[in-house]
């Protein structure tokens, strides 16, 4: 019944929400309906006053419209782990950015029920000139923790990242791996209902990767809803309940992760042969 609804709505453009009762169905953590997003692709990017003035007098608009998302609709149930796969530049990260509220969609509707934390990348906002502890606090605040909450968790973060000895070291003296471990350890301190994750499970050495993998499994066990963008098809098969395969801004296939991954392989096999 639900699948049928979604299909019907996919036909139309703009905001189509079905009935409010359906839209507000409490079984779903995330509902996305006919999402559209386009960017202006500038051939000559006007970024100064001078260029804008010159641009007023030239007829060439200087950009073309790049449709990144062409009407995407899907739902994620509460406690479900949804993988999103697709090649580079197919709109996966844009989709996540819209889910997080960083970008605004041109058309369509998004509804998230529950608190959200974006894991779009690790260590953004880290200041090389501040100590590990200062950075943990800042990063925690960015992710929406209160100062008290994050202060209480500093020992946990340091021990998780195995960086207790470097608590007062400035971040610029950290190695890439240490940097990533600290970022990941801080990020998993948040306790949201919905996690939006963009390719962050491949940080650190093998043992740390295994540890971060375990952490995500524990999130899942605690009934968190997770949307997970990755290029690692094996991880999708191991972790996700369902998956979405995005191609050219539309959903090529949505279903059980095993099937979607196969479809992904098939799709590109066919392409290669032609």
């Amino acid at each position, binding site marked *: 019944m639900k699948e049928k609804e979604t299909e019907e709505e996919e036909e139309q453009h703009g*905001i189509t929400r079905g009935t409010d009762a359906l839209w507000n169905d409490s079984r779903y953590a995330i509902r996305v309906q006919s999402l559209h997003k386009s*960017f*202006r692709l500038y051939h000559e990017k006007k*970024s*100064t*006053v*001078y260029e*804008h003035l010159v641009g007023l007098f030239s007829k060439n608009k200087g950009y073309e419209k790049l449709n990144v998302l062409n009407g995407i609709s899907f739902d994620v149930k509460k406690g479900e782990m949804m993988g999103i796969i697709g090649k580079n530049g197919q709109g996966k990260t844009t989709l996540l*950015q*819209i*889910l*997080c*509220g*960083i*970008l*605004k*969609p041109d058309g*369509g*509707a*998004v*509804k*998230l029920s*529950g*608190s*959200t934390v*974006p894991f*779009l*990348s690790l260590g*953004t*906002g880290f*200041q090389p*000139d*501040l100590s590990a502890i*200062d950075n943990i*606090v*800042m990063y925690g*605040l*960015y*992710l*929406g923790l*209160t*100062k008290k909450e994050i202060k209480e968790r500093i020992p946990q973060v340091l021990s998780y990242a195995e960086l207790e000895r470097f608590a007062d070291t400035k971040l610029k003296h950290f190695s890439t791996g240490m940097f990533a471990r600290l970022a990941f350890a801080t990020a998993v301190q948040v306790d949201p209902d919905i996690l939006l994750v963009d390719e962050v499970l491949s940080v650190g050495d093998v043992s740390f990767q295994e540890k971060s993998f375990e952490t995500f499994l524990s999130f899942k066990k605690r009934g968190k809803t997770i949307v997970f963008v990755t290029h690692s098809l094996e991880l999708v098969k191991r972790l996700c309940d369902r998956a979405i395969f995005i191609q050219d801004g539309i959903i090529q296939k949505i279903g059980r992760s095993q099937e979607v991954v196969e479809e992904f392989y098939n799709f590109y096999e066919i392409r290669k042969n032609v």
Partner: protein
Amino acid sequence: MYSGRFLKGVPLTRYYSLIFSLAISGLKLHYKNSFLGFIWTFLQPLLFLGVLYTVFNSLLGSRILYFPLYLLIGLVLWNSFARSTSSSMMSFVSRRDLLLKVYFPREIIPISTHITTFIMTLFDLCAFGVFVVLFHFVPPWTILYLPILLIILFTLTLGLSFILSVANVYFRDLEHIWGIVLQAGFFLAPIFLSMDIYPPSVRHILVFNPMTLVIDMAHNIVLYNHVPSVGAFGYLTVVSIAILGIGYIIFKKFESKAIEIL
């Protein structure tokens, strides 16, 4: 259309600690990166004062009463304005990565940058206090008006900071243009000159520039025991609140588009 808890129903007050931590870490970065750190707060105005004092007092001869302090208070307030607007202007562009990866209310960025620079202004005022003592100057009671003037300056600058932070995303050469505007403003504001040197007709135009009025008023209340007129105070209050309001509206209108082209 978007609905999610992170965007709706979460008041800006939830982010107080983020705003202040950002402001404090900005301060830490500012002072940690220089060798003499905090001492620069006192050294810089002293050196600059030395230069201006030599030029305007010894060479040109100034007839302004308490000239060194006159110079200094003007400089402190003008620097506050210049520093705050120019660092807020860069705040969006320099945090591109953060803005594209984490969601929090975007106002936080210019607000916290503004607070950082304003705390520096308070340090500068302490330095001014030290000079007041060194010159054996006893300020008149009208100095009690200074906090009100500072609040007006804060409001006014914050409004401009909102506009500049998003405008600089669209027009990347704005920082050069703004540099020139600031330079011109420095000579138009009564920092090392007295308003008296202008003919009355010009003076009537100049006082419409809020910064001119702020600095002129500061001279009067800190040094000369003049109670500011209600009209001037009223004008400044209205203008600064209007600029803050307009600035915020412009900011809200363009912030999401600015993020896309960041």
